[in-house]
């Protein structure tokens, strides 16, 4: 029971115009991992590999201790998967779906399903095609959460939802991980959602993992340092600096490894530190991706 919820090592998958390169990830029970990347970064491909829907060309994939894709059917007994493009049977009602899914899972929690119906304001007699996008996502989530899965794989579940629906869904997910045996991998390009609920963050771009660490430490490392730099002063190289923008005397340095020592380095060089700003996850995400792309290009 103490095995990692997700343990993938060296996974590769090549397509004609896209290559998922050397992906290694580990998610422990009780954790929520925010899986952040721009469109086409490889988030959905990675999650579908975890679900056994896509076979990797190389690498080892273990989900709740089971080898995937070989033992995908066993692993999926305790995995709940929701993606924004997933659809239910449009001509059938939500009640029909609940009746159909419930017997598959011995752990189906009918009382919780009823509670979720109320919480999400869903009507079981309504056909799926009559539901709005937000209601459809909630209906899918209900069908997944009521199974009480040990691992939730959520691929952009909040895309296209209004703020209230997003809040309802994120609150429900926070509830799920109160049980420390459960884990969530939450993919999104909405960094606000990810920042709100994740305790581990992984950045993905163009099929490669750029960064993976715990959210608080990660965000704490990043700063934007505003400097006044006289014309004759050259800013020294410092570890962790991902970007320096200079316009006349004004310079803005973005760093992924901020310590107060950095202020001293610039002061000793003749610059004046005017402001040190914390960065939002979105700013960090953009800075990481752009820095990585510049490095790859050079």
């Amino acid at each position, binding site marked *: 029971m103490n095995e990692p919820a997700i343990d993938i090592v060296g996974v590769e998958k090549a397509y004609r115009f896209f290559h998922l390169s050397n992906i290694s990830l580990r998610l422990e029970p009780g954790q929520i991992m925010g899986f952040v990347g721009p469109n086409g970064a490889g988030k959905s491909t990675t999650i*579908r590999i975890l679900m056994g*829907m896509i076979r990797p060309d190389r690498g080892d994939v273990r989900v709740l201790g089971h080898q995937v894709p070989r033992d995908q*059917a066993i692993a999926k007994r305790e995995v709940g998967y929701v993606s924004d*493009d997933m659809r*239910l049977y449009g*001509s059938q009602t939500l009640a029909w779906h609940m009746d*159909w899914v419930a*017997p*598959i899972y011995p752990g189906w929690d009918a009382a919780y399903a009823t509670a979720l119906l109320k919480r999400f304001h869903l009507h079981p007699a309504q056909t799926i095609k009559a539901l709005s996008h937000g209601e459809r996502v909630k209906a899918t989530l209900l069908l997944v959460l009521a199974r009480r899965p040990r691992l939730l794989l959520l691929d952009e579940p909040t895309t296209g939802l209004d703020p209230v629906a997003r809040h309802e869904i994120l609150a429900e997910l926070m509830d799920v991980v109160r049980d420390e045996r459960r884990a969530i991998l939450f993919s999104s390009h909405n960094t606000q959602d990810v920042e709100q609920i994740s305790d581990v963050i992984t950045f993905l771009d163009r099929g490669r993992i750029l960064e993976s660490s715990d959210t608080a430490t990660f965000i704490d490392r990043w700063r934007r340092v505003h400097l006044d730099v006289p014309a004759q002063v050259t800013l020294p190289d410092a570890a962790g600096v991902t970007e320096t923008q200079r316009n006349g005397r004004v310079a803005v340095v973005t760093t992924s490894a901020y310590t107060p020592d950095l202020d001293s380095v610039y002061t000793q060089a003749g610059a004046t530190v005017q402001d040190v700003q914390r960065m939002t996850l979105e700013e960090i995400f953009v800075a990481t991706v752009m820095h990585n792309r510049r490095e790859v290009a050079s």
Partner: protein
Amino acid sequence: MNRSIVRHLILKDLHLMRWMSRSALVGGLVAVGLMSVSPLPIAGGGVLLVCALVVLNIFLVMHGVVQERKDQVAVFVLSLPVSTTQYVAAKVVANLIAFSVPWLVLTAATLVMIDVSQMPNGFLPFWTAVLGYLFFYYCVLLGVGLMTTSSGWHATAIIAGNISVNFLIMALFASPSVQAYGAGDTAVWTTGMAALVVAEIVGGIAVLAAVVMTHSRRREFV
């Protein structure tokens, strides 16, 4: 557990496809009734019977297989504790049942109708071969539906299948076997005609077996 889930998937598909099977059965039985009032081997009733089974074929595959994948409902089903091979196997079995039950009933009704009506019994092998070909056509279209989500391939398979039914009927009419024994009072099964019917059934099942085997080796499904 997995066997019971596969059964669960099959029952779900049969539930979703039941109106198509029932409609084709009703339409087909009306067609067989119409066939009984004409001494001609193929007239309005016969055409209607072929149409009922061709429409059932296309509806089952396009609605039950292709649409499910295009609409991404297959992603939901594959999120359940089932492998892609089990999903495909369940699809094949459910679709075979949904088509084969009305097809078997209509084939039996047609053969009984020929035996008891004024239509010569010599046409029994002819109709068996035509109906057998519709089974083969169904298996091929189901295979194409499972192998690709390309609308182009589906349209090609449907057009080729529909045209081939017409060519088969013309070829059978022109065959020495039907020419020699079609108008007779007793059904004469020549080796060629018997082999054709066996090839249609075995060929259809072989196509589906190949599809399931191919899927078990595919690197991705959705």
